[in-house]
């Protein structure tokens, strides 16, 4: 029979074998969440190394906070707040200039449906505060003067406002940008299969470890339910809906996506979902299409290369672009 030394050697060999077998490790799905930009941001990724994931996730969250500080209209030190306060030409960082240029491009494409100069309107409605209210027509008219795709003149890094009183609000595009930056950071951190969900604004890096990521679209009227599921990889998905931030006064629901023409919440859609290569574009296009409505909005989405979308009309009908792939229903 085996003597004691032999047993010890056998056990050591077994241990060595196990260590070798378990060595590299299977990539596992890790998840972290943080509260940034007033919403819960979740990062999921496949990684064989949990430390690598933690470091990458931390870096991504830090980058999102940096973007928030740069573009928030609520932080007085942000470049955007300073730009809003400036009356003459204002020099911004290259990053801000690039984002403003992208926003302006979409503003022009959507005939002004996407608008970055609604700072005063948003403050008027108080929709970001605990005391929102319905302003008068007169008040709305005042803050909509000279609003349009050309209300900003961008020359390299110098920005001039057509109206010195113009207040910039990047709510319709900044979260998308933050998500894009976060994914870049995750990629730099060595991750190859990751997903980030910032309160519904989603960007994917790679696929889900060999399978596409399944992205559920929230049903705009049934809180627990899913409208449809999209199989996606390496894409961004952003949904704008009338059910996220709103208040009710005298039986009418007022939500946070304003029509720059009327100065009131856009009423033609319940929700718009846009799939694009990056979340910045998806975010801005979703806002624009929501304002434009199912007919003009869908047309806008169809016209963009590499962009697909789905619109739930005000009456609950679902229309989509021709290239959108769904997992039923």
């Amino acid at each position, binding site marked *: 029979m085996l003597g004691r030394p032999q047993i010890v050697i056998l056990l050591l060999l077994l241990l060595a074998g196990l260590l070798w077998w378990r060595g590299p490790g299977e990539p596992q799905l890790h998840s972290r969440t943080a509260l940034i930009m007033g919403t819960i941001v979740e990062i999921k990724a496949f990684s064989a190394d949990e430390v690598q994931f933690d470091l990458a996730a931390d870096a991504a969250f830090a980058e999102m906070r940096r973007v928030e500080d740069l573009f928030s209209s609520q932080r007085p030190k942000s470049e955007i707040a300073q730009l809003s306060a400036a009356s003459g030409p204002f020099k911004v960082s290259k990053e801000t200039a690039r984002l403003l240029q992208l926003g302006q491009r979409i503003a022009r494409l959507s005939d002004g449906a996407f608008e970055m100069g609604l700072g005063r309107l948003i403050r008027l409605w108080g929709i970001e505060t605990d005391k929102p209210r319905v302003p008068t027509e007169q008040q709305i008219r005042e803050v909509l003067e000279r609003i349009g795709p050309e209300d900003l003149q961008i020359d390299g890094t110098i920005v001039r406002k057509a109206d010195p009183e113009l207040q910039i609000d990047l709510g319709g595009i900044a979260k998308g940008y933050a998500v894009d930056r976060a994914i870049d950071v995750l990629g730099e951190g060595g991750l190859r299969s990751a997903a980030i969900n910032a309160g519904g604004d989603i960007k994917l890096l790679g696929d889900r470890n060999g399978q596409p990521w399944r992205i*559920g*679209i*929230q049903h705009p009227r049934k809180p627990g339910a899913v409208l449809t599921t999209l199989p996606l990889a390496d894409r961004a998905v*952003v949904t704008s809906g009338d059910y996220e931030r709103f208040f009710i006064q005298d039986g009418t629901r007022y939500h946070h996506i304003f029509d720059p023409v009327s100065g009131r919440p856009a009423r033609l859609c319940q929700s718009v979902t846009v799939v694009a290569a990056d979340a910045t574009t998806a975010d801005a296009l979703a806002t624009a299409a929501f304002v434009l409505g199912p007919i003009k909005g869908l047309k806008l989405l169809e016209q963009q290369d590499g962009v697909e979308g789905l619109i739930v009309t005000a009456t609950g009908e679902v229309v989509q672009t021709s290239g959108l792939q769904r997992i039923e229903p």
Partner: protein
Amino acid sequence: MRRSDWLQRLTPFDRKLVLLLALVVLVTFLLPFRQEKGQRVVVSSGEKILFVAPLDQDRVVDVPGPLGSTRLQIAGGGVRVLSSPCPKKICIGMGEARNRGDLLACVPNRVVIRIEGGADQKGSYDLLSR
């Protein structure tokens, strides 16, 4: 070590305790757990999800597999296999799946049918865009 040796290592109290606890464990097996009604049929082959459909819409679906096409019928809130190219037709004999967690499978044709459901069940998607 003879068979009875290990029993010797339990004191008389131990034996009674183990018997009692074994009874308790048995009881937990019999406790009925809430059978929630299913809402969705998820059909997959291996790791890949082929098809998801709601349980409340009657339809007939053909699912492709290495052996051929397995035909499913969704009707009356449940799903069953109508026909399949497998030799033993065990999947047809499995009958109907209707509650959350129920499973049907045609192993030779690599088709797995699962029922998912419940409002708070995140079964069929990884992330939610809202």
